[in-house]
């Protein structure tokens, strides 16, 4: 297969981030058009990319400038990349569609879209790159634009959250840069495939584990695993709703989970068999995230803040799936990346729709919205059933696979905990439905009107995909998620595909 489409994932949004301000000077609304057209093209391209892997090739490699991998930057597109790119661009498209009307009560429309495109540049870049320093640069592109978008409302809360997010996030970025410096000092190359071959020759010295630890700290901050989560419950609710959907849906997973698993599994060659301690550590952090995130979510009175704590809890599920480290555990973790991206993206969009209609996110002030906003209410309800793991929605299968993985690894307590906390998930998500959408006897329904048509279309799009992913889980697992899990499980075998051996 031809790999020439791979750099387009970076080039198209980067060019549009430049063109949007230019055309917006001529005609304000052109920003909507360009951004949504680009979103649709990228979503189509990511579907094309995933389909092109079905024909049998394991990895598509693009060498920038035609340089040999040990000298230049390579871009690689394998099943794991295809999976995250698909999640990024589909959630991105729905968020962009939603933004068209949501931005009505914001100023600086084109600034929003330009920054949003830069986030897409960063996320797609992190997914397709095969170079360590390139990974850092794209991480920073995505991160810096997200700091600006969190503070986009420039009110008290947004500024506070933006600053807090920025300081903590940049400490994470600094940790990643230091880790890359140490890695370069040891390996004298930055190409992931070449690094992994060089590192295979070194022993597991203290320096090796120091590099692993620095990377882990950096990615842990980006993915907001407990105890590195302090910024997330402030930052995600303060951003405009489409941005929250992108941040909670895919941002933390691409910059955190995906980048971490690529580096740990494929570059350092860690696996359950040769580094059990590291994987137990992941399970430990995962359990901590599930429990702390889930219980704190219960206590929230703010619609979006509750969802933000729920994201921390769901990141915990992905972590224990990776930590279990066998085939079904990793399949569950990767499937949960997809299911949670669609589900949490959807829930944040409903939050935006409610805020757009009523002007508040306070669950104590909302009531009985189901009568006035049926589409939003039912999107919320079905989306939350998916996240909580009710069959036949997508979220059920990811948790099911993780539990199968735990059982086949003889970790019975982990399986019990995962099952138990999916009822906690259901509990706090139903709390929102009860308070905001379904009538309470002691309270008048809040005055509101259903969201504009494009916002409803964006929500229904994600809802339909959640159901399709759940009902049609088998082909998705066979063709995409299973091969993606094998990419991680092959460990250092990754290098052979890139170097063409």
């Amino acid at each position: 297969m031809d790999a020439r489409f791979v750099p387009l994932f970076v080039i198209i949004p980067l060019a549009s981030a430049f063109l949007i301000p230019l055309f917006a000077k001529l005609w304000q609304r052109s920003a909507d058009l360009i951004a949504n057209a680009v979103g649709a093209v990228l979503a189509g391209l990511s579907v094309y990319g995933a389909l092109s892997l079905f024909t049998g090739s394991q990895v598509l490699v693009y060498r920038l400038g035609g340089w040999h991998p040990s000298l230049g930057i390579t871009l690689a597109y394998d099943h794991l990349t295809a999976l995250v790119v698909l999640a990024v661009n589909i959630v991105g498209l729905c968020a962009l569609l939603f933004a068209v009307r949501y931005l009505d009560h914001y100023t600086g429309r084109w600034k929003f879209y330009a920054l949003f495109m830069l986030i897409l540049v960063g996320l797609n870049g992190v997914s397709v790159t095969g170079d360590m320093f390139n990974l850092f640069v794209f991480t920073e592109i995505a991160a810096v634009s997200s700091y600006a978008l969190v503070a986009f409302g420039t009110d008290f809360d947004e500024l506070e959250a933006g600053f807090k997010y920025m300081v903590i996030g940049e400490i994470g970025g600094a940790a990643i840069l230091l880790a890359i410096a140490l890695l370069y000092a040891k390996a004298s190359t930055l190409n992931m495939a070449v690094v992994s071959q060089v590192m295979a020759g070194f022993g597991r010295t203290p320096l090796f584990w120091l590099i692993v630890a620095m990377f882990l700290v950096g990615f842990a901050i980006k993915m907001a695993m407990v105890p590195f989560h302090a910024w997330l419950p402030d930052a995600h609710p303060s951003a405009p709703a489409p941005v929250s959907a992108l941040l909670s849906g895919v941002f933390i997973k691409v910059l955190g989970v995906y980048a971490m698993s690529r580096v740990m599994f494929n570059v350092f060659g860690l696996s359950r068999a040769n580094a059990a301690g590291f994987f137990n550590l992941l399970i430990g952090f995962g359990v901590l995230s599930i429990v702390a995130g889930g219980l704190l979510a219960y206590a929230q009175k703010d619609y979006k803040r509750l969802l933000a704590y729920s994201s921390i809890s769901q990141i915990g599920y992905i972590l224990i799936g990776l930590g279990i480290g066998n085939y079904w555990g990793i399949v569950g973790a990767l499937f949960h990346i997809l299911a949670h991206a669609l589900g949490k993206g959807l829930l944040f969009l409903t939050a935006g729709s409610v805020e757009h209609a009523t002007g508040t996110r306070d669950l104590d002030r909302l009531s009985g919205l189901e009568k006035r906003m049926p589409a939003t209410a039912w999107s919320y309800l079905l989306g939350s059933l998916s996240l909580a793991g009710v069959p036949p929605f997508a979220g059920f299968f990811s948790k099911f696979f993780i539990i199968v993985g735990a059982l086949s690894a003889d970790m019975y307590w982990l399986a019990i905990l995962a099952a138990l906390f999916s009822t906690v998930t259901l509990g706090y998500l139903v709390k929102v439905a009860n308070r905001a959408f379904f009538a309470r006897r002691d309270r008048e329904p809040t005055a509101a009107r259903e969201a504009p048509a494009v916002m409803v279309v964006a929500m229904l799009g994600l809802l339909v995909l959640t159901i399709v992913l759940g009902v049609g889980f088998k082909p998705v697992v066979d063709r995409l998620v299973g091969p993606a899990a094998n990419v991680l499980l092959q460990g250092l075998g990754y290098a052979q595909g890139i170097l063409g051996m």
Partner: protein
Amino acid sequence: MIPYFACILLVLIGLYAVVTKRNIVRIIIGFSLVEYAINLFFALVGFKREGIPPIITELGQSRSNFVDPLPQALVLTAIVIGLATTALMLALAMRIYEKYRTFDITEIRRLRG
């Protein structure tokens, strides 16, 4: 080895400032310290005693003393990223001051729970 540890010490001093200082501007200065210490560390990785620039001027010249140019190129990129983050942090600090009329982070605490 001493320069490497001095760099790490600088990182720690910067982190100390970020964690303990109450004034936003001091936090930003502490953060810049972390950033530049890491850049310095990265540049040191490519350092070679009595090294020469990696330019081939005549045939038969010994190449064993060439300095590795890649860390310097990477540090340049890192500096540019650092410029963007520092600028954005300062811009946020200015907006925070306009809203809250203070730089003290203990008084900028509306989000909790």
